[in-house]
């Protein structure tokens, strides 16, 4: 097993025993005695998992998690607690911890919980919103959009459309925000997003390329264009290049059949595209 784990606890014995149990399993374990030191380390290194005590002097665990989330929203966190009161657990849960360890715990339990948390990371179960795209400014704009249509019937789809216009795509954090704001279950929001092809949960590139796959474009060689683009940009339809410059989408008929085959880059429509010259289209988009 590999992975970087940060353990935060004011009790030395806990730190030591965690290290003793986890290090032989192949994890790189860093230990610190306070939230402050831990936050410093978070700036410097990259961790896959944080294990933190809740009751600590100076900065308590909840406050630490809150601050750590600002730095890295998608990191998995496990809390250790000697007094698992409902309130403290609920508070920790609201900060999206993945599990908790009641004190005292045995090495087997520790290993079990850690292994599961690391597995989650691998298969990507943990929410992974992209913080760069979701600033406080955007959150407040989103609030305004939600407020405008909060008590209107059927407002979910227009709100999602505006939100996507605002953020560029619909990461889980935005869906949660909308779900809370409109008082619609998250499952329903997600159901709508996954149903309509207009919505995307993946970020788009700086230039979004849409290839029309309507019948008229199809009979005039749209498939060749798709092939050219996927081969040259090294991405599949529905994904974005590594440098986030281009993303590729197919659309079902843009209704501009007179121009077939049609490729839309950003907001510009390019008609009568010759499949052979497809790549020349991109030179003006850098």
């Amino acid at each position, binding site marked *: 097993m590999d992975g970087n784990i940060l353990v935060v606890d004011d009790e030395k014995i806990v730190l030591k025993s965690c290290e003793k149990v986890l290090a032989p399993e192949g994890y790189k374990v860093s230990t610190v005695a306070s939230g402050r030191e831990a936050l410093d380390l978070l700036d410097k290194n990259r961790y896959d998992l944080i294990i933190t005590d809740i009751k600590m002097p100076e900065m308590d665990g909840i406050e630490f998690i809150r601050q750590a989330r600002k730095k890295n929203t998608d990191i998995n966190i496990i809390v250790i607690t000697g007094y698992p009161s409902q309130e403290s657990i609920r508070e920790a849960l609201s900060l999206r911890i993945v599990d908790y360890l009641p004190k005292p715990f045995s090495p087997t339990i520790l290993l079990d919980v850690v292994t599961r948390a690391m597995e989650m990371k691998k298969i990507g179960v943990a929410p992974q919103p992209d913080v760069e795209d979701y600033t406080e400014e955007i959150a407040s704009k989103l609030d305004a959009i939600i407020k405008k249509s909060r008590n209107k019937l059927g407002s*979910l789809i227009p709100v999602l*459309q505006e939100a996507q216009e605002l953020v560029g795509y619909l990461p889980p954090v935005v869906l949660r925000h909308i779900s809370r704001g409109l008082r619609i279950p998250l499952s329903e929001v997600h159901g709508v997003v996954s149903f*309509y*092809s207009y*919505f995307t949960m993946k970020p788009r590139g700086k230039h979004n390329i849409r290839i029309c796959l309507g019948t008229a474009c199809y009979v005039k060689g749209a498939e060749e264009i798709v092939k050219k683009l996927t081969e040259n940009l090294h991405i599949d339809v529905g994904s974005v290049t590594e440098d986030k410059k281009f993303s590729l989408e197919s659309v*079902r*008929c843009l209704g*501009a059949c007179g121009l077939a085959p049609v490729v839309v880059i950003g907001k*510009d429509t390019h*008609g009568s595209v010759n499949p052979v010259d497809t790549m020349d289209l991109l030179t003006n988009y850098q």
Partner: protein
Amino acid sequence: MENYRASVMLCGGTGCMAGDSLKIKDAFTDELNKRGLSHEINVVITGCNGFCAQGPVMTVYPDDIFYEKVKVADVPLIIEEHFIKGRPVEKLMYKELAKKSAIPLMKDIPFFSLQVLRALRNKGLIDPEKIEEYIARDGYMAAAKALNEMTPEQVIDEMKRSGLRGRGGAGFPTGLKWELSAKVKGGEKFIICNGDEGDPGAFMDRSIMEGDPHVVLEGMLIGARAIGASKGYIYVRAEYPLAVQRLQIAIDQAKEFGLLGDNILGSGFNFDIEIYQGAGAFVCGEATALMRSIEGKRGMPRPKFWRSAVKGLWDKPTVLNNVETFANIPQIILNGASWYTSLGTEKSTGTKVFALSGAINNIGLIEVPMGIPLSKIIYDIGGGVPKGRKFKAVQLGGPSGGCIPESLIDTPVTFEDIVKTGAIIGSGGMVVMNDLNCMVSVSKFFLEFTTEESCGKCPPCRIGNTVLQDLLEKITKGEGEEGDIELIEDISHEIIKTSLCGLGQTSPNPVLTSIRYFRSEFEEHAGDKWCRTGVCKDLCTFYIEEEKCKACGACKRVCPQKAIIGEKKVPHRIDQSLCVQCRSCYTVCKFDSVKIGPRAMRDQLLEQWVSDSGKTVAMAGKEE
């Protein structure tokens, strides 16, 4: 208002806009200002003119001169020659295909002269962003008549007598639909305009919404009055941003003019319209799914225990009509039902708008009387198949329709006659295919579409179409077996029988009609492993018939693989080890010497090649 001596009507449809018609307008404005002619010549951006293939297009009135493929650089020339010297610019005029002679007047161009414009009567004549221009063309007169001179019963009666049938595909009589809903007493009612034009290859509704948005509003207003609705929605695809923009401008203007809102035209009738943008789901063209979508839910159809006219949006009586249907209504009310039935056949009255595209010379939007034979549309209006290729089939009705072969090309275009062929009129997309199109691949294309767009509610549609698609994939990959075609037919009939909504019930139509008319092509694919059109790369071998080859070198120049060997005056040959079956040589050869044989031929030719040249061979770009 200024009195201009001439007006330049520049097309501002999506197609021409992509050809920079807005920049052309700016160039006109600048140039006219420079020459001090801006008070004499008016430049207007209109809705879609319809002749999209020749875009950007413009018409000069009152002369009725039609210019095509206009570029920014042509603007000074047009002004100098046409407006100052009075000599229309010949090089920008439409050229008749056969004679290559220029046709100056729009009314003489066959593409326009054979059409009858009713739903599209304002196309290219008005600025869609100005309500005054719509009103000047008798706009809102029908609404005034329906609101102040007619009772709702009279309106419905007129509609019933006109025989107008829904233009969205199903062809349900509009008057009957309205009557059902009008009979439900009391409570809130809705009227919805279905602008979720999803059929690939169809763009009639887009053109109407972009080019004449007020006619849609007026049609809805009349419908609302007839059934007693107070609120209307226009459901537009998100892929049509220009339509959304122009409809919004139209709604705002109509409100300003008191044509929407409270107490319209002093009649005491209140009605409001809101635009609702779709989010990209083909199934939302189905009425009940569309209503779920407006409610903010996944757009899945529901069983029709009751009609939406009785219980629709939010369980209230709702009438849903297509954009083109609404565009027909004001003229029917204004001129009467008998005027409308003067065109068309007994059961299919009036006119229908079609979007012509694919392998045809005159791509664009046309409106023709119902009952016109398909051949007239394709050859007379559409100008036939370009580049001397052969007509093979015409696809009607998109993923719910089918391909009509050459033998049925004289079928009159009516709801009943087209259904007999296995296709449907659908919303009006007409995609022409030539001999380069493989019918198996086209069937696969439509099944890929329906598989992707199936909402997933009913297993016959969700799983059945996937199985059909897999079978076709298998056949086009060269793994077809005996019985595959029969299996496709069996599954198709089950899907049709057991699906809930129109999408599922019609999804096997494209493959069924293709098998019906092009069975031999399917058998060649499955049995002989041969795609005679060369589309299915795994099922063909390109070779040159040496007796026919004139050694002109045309194929050699286009071959991206440099696989063609031959000198001047020596018949060429294709090196099978390098050929990637791109079809370039086949399409370029003027002497019909490049031939397409079955897959098995490739190995024979390769062996022969090796023994002839003693060369060892590695296959190019093919992973076997």
